[in-house]
């Protein structure tokens, strides 16, 4: 699938997918990479090392620093794929250097799919297991 480059880079890993927006601040613990938002479908799951797939960001604008912190703490996702990346996530991934693209039909990606993300060319490919 072809989208739009938000932050360049290349990554390949298992996808962790949610159809709910993610608020990084208060939603993900920057020290562990575990989703902590009450009621979120991904609550309790670890996003570290995965390709994180969600529609768009929500909530506090401090989210950019949380993404940057996840990277510095070594628990960031290796790539991010969105339907529509808003500025909070865009700022975070650019600063942290995490490959990210958007304008992707994310419902085609299933939890556990191995996804190759080539953000330099704004392409993601699903490799079914």
């Amino acid at each position: 699938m072809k989208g739009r480059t938000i932050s360049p880079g290349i990554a390949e890993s298992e996808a962790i997918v949610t159809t709910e927006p993610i608020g990084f601040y208060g939603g993900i613990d920057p020290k562990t990479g575990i989703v902590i938002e009450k009621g979120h479908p991904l609550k309790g799951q670890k996003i570290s090392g995965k390709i994180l797939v969600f529609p768009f960001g929500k909530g506090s604008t401090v989210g950019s620093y949380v993404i940057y912190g996840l990277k510095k703490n070594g628990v960031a996702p290796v790539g991010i794929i969105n339907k529509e990346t808003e500025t909070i996530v865009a700022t975070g991934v650019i600063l942290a250097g995490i490959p990210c693209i958007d304008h992707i039909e994310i419902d085609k990606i299933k939890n556990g799919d191995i996804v190759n993300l080539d953000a330099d060319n704004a392409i993601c490919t699903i490799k079914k297991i």
Partner: protein
Amino acid sequence: MHLTKEEEKILNGEKGEVMERLFRLLVRLGDIYDAKKMIPVGSVQVAGVSYKSIGDPGTEFLEDIAFKGARVKVLTYLNPAGMDLEDWKKYGFPADFAKNQLRIMDAFKKMGIVVTSTCTPYLAGNLPRFREHIAWSESSAVSFSNSVIGARTNREGGPSALAAAICGVTANYGLHLWERRQPTIKVNVKVDLNFNSDFGALGWYIGKQVKNKIPYFTGIKNANTDQLKALGAAMAASGAVALYHVEDITPEADLVNTKGLESISIGKSEIKETYNLLSTGKTPDIVIFGCPHASLREISTLADKLDGKKLKRPVWICTSRMVKEAAERMGFNEIITKAGGSIIADTCMVVSPIENMGYKTTGVNSGKAANYLPGFCKQEVCFANIDDLVEGQL
């Protein structure tokens, strides 16, 4: 995107490494969102101030920028810090936390940023005008300035707001453009809203429903700025609403196009359901007002309710240093302190480490606070109106 000769020079590193790095972030964002040019901003509000939210990585990032001599070009305010910057010892904020928080404040001060920490800059001396382009970042302040004042800002991430402050410009896209400020969903309110918490409940419910749309409210008969502040804050927390319009109340409501919009309704039962949903705890250990930061009117109301009373458990009111100053002058602070409450400045319950201060259940009248406290402060929440909350602590 078109860049002027001066802007090209920044990008080529002629104005130093920090300017280049931060301007590059703005250009990148502009390219992503199809901006045609950069526009000057009238003021900036930077989020990412509490040590609790940005941690060591964020602190080092800011110290590096300050150390390399970057200075802001426009009036720049800060979001709440993780503690009262003057009275932190008195309220029991941990000393090691305070040390790091003060490092962050020093870095900001070096950059020429006004080190008052508030999510309501518009109540503390940073007031944009109608149609002024600004780069603000705290989500409730963004909502208020866009919706209630009619200034124009996107929801800036903490670092992109800082970049706008240091460069004096932001990319012209999104909510800076009139065509992007049109409503995308109509919300018919079929319930009378009395307490500020009713507006918080409405906002929380609608934010969940509309996610990142621009709602146009009808049926809200009246709302003061405190209530609009509560409404917008909750919508930005449960959803990603950065702009809303209210028929006959907000400045752009008469100017936008509402034809053919999808429409949803909210009544008494949805508001009641939201109160129940947000209340996970039974009896609060502490009640905290002031999310977003309390106005002088809200503090005066609380002073009336607490006058001559004795609190069994703590009540905090979070506000900006400027409003606390006025509350002291009016004697509100004395009344509240005598009753056993505290007016705490520069910080709020969401960004302060209350979970490390022995509190497990927090009472709030804010939809935004009720949204964040379980995740970020590991709190059970009692969401209720001001009267019930105060009554419960006496």
